[in-house]
């Protein structure tokens, strides 16, 4: 059991990492635009876009992306963690993509990157909407605070007020969201890894289910749950670092 986890977990971490980064970048950018132009066309279009995302099952989004980018456009590979025949990097951190980067093994790195994009994008597409919603709402609240009025009274230009004072405070709500976001992303790998034949833990759980190896599934599910709770804790610790009020009280 532990060997299986050791072999598959790094790949799930890879997907979860990229999915997280994309979700946050996309979510924050669109959230900021939505807040800045709230109730205008940009806001409404962004809402339509992320609504399509959060209402899609992750396996559906994955299939759509697969069809578009692999079958139609032939831009990205359809499965696996890396191209066939490319030598693996030496295990340093035990996370292949990271190891190849450290080592300078760019053949592996670029291939691995190409293989991780679609699965990560599928997960991100289905989850980024929550980030947009939370950030938009938080930004709108924050921009009505008294300290924003003070910042303007000091003579700061509006974009400094918006980003340095406004966004910095609004981001706290995104940080709180992060731990939940990561758990959703990791959960989603059960579906996405299967569709992209990505050798992570999610795919292992899926295989166990289809072979109806239910005791195996129970064990894996428990491990899965533990990993998720652990990620939650890590994220909560990070939250403390970001909000000075929590840190000092």
């Amino acid at each position, binding site marked *: 059991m532990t060997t299986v986890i050791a072999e598959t977990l790094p790949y799930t971490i890879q997907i979860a990492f990229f999915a997280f980064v994309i979700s946050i970048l996309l979510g924050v950018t669109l959230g900021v635009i939505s807040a800045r132009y709230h109730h205008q066309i940009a806001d409404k279009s962004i809402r339509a876009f992320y609504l399509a995302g959060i209402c899609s099952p992750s396996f559906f989004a994955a299939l759509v992306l697969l069809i578009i980018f692999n079958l139609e456009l032939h831009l990205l590979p359809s499965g696996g963690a890396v191209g066939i025949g490319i030598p693996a990097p030496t295990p340093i951190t035990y996370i292949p993509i990271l190891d190849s980067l450290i080592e300078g093994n760019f053949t592996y790195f670029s291939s691995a990157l190409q293989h991780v994009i679609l699965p990560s994008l599928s997960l991100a597409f289905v989850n980024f909407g929550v980030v947009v919603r939370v950030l938009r709402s938080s930004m709108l609240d924050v921009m009505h605070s*008294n300290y924003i*009025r003070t910042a303007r009274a000091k003579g700061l230009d509006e974009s400094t007020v918006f980003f340095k004072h406004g966004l910095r405070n609004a981001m*706290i709500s995104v940080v709180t969201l992060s731990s939940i976001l990561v758990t959703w992303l990791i959960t989603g790998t059960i579906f996405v890894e299967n569709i992209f034949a990505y050798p992570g833990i999610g795919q292992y759980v899926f295989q166990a289910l289809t072979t109806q190896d239910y005791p195996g599934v129970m064990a894996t599910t428990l491990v899965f749950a533990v990993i998720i709770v652990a990620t939650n804790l890590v994220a909560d610790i990070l939250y403390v670092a970001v909000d000075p009020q929590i840190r000092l*009280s």
Partner: protein
Amino acid sequence: MSLNRKLLTISDLSINYQSGQGTALAVQNVSLNMGENQFVAVVGESGCGKSTLALAIIGLLSVPPAKIESGTIEYKSVDLLSLKENDRRKFRGTEIAMIFQEPLTSLNPVYKVGDQIAEAVMIREQRNEHPESVGEIGVMQKTYSSNDHALPSKVHLPRFSSRDRTPTILDALKLVRIADPEQVIERYPFELSGGMRQRVMIAMALSQKPALLLADEPTTALDVTTQAQVLKLIKTLMSEVNTSVLLITHDLAVASQVADRIIVMYAGDLVEDSDVYELFSEPLHPYTKGLLSCIPSGSKKDKALKPIPGTVFDLTKPSAGCKFASRCSRCMDICRAKKPVLVETKPGHRVACFLYGE
């Protein structure tokens, strides 16, 4: 000290607020002057328009609900209302500064106090370094060339870290009589007491060396002892830093302790404007008299406080006559028919009341 040089001239200013309940005439035809090194208090009940007036001066009115219907605000001979927002902004902080009622929520919770003051100082430094040489602002420069308040152009964000500015920041905190400024600059706003936070706000505002400081009920959220301390501080600083202060307050007693001049507002109208001693010895407007009799004092120990009868005027309902008419003990027929205009009964004492002429 040039008492005749007008720092701020407001002429016939009217501001409306649009709301679900209709249009509220928040400020109606208000005119006033302020010179350098003056401490003026604008006194009135909540909703009388005093905060709106202050926000209009610094240009922080939320313009969708609010609207400046007419009038001018002249600061150092520049018509502020005719400026584009970008130019208007250049007067904020380094020319006209403002401190607000709730110091906790008025300071950004995620930045240290020192960093927030550093930001203010940085703006001051930038504007010193890039004075505009053309346009209206340039005209001002020529008129006031001897003074310290250089006027800004584009504000570039420099790469200086706040460490370069530490001496300036520490000076600012010492100015507001904070005992251990080195400690305080490392603190976050929530770690300080209400009084300390307000001192920090004052320090931050004054570090930009404004010629005019607007203080909107700065002590209302503080306990009584701290209130007195902060007010005394503002008064002392006024002369130390060569800044005029416009204090907004509902508390006439508080205003009388620190102000040189008192302006009384009621329901958007300016009803009386006079030197503080004169106001207390010879109040003219019935509303002012009412306010004075509301002040509890030792000499009135056994007497009941006399509140002003009636309720506050509804700003959404227009009135033909004097807005105070329904509550006034000296109300005459003409008061209900026509609005009184401001007359100067003595030099330096204006009042809007039919008891004192048309």
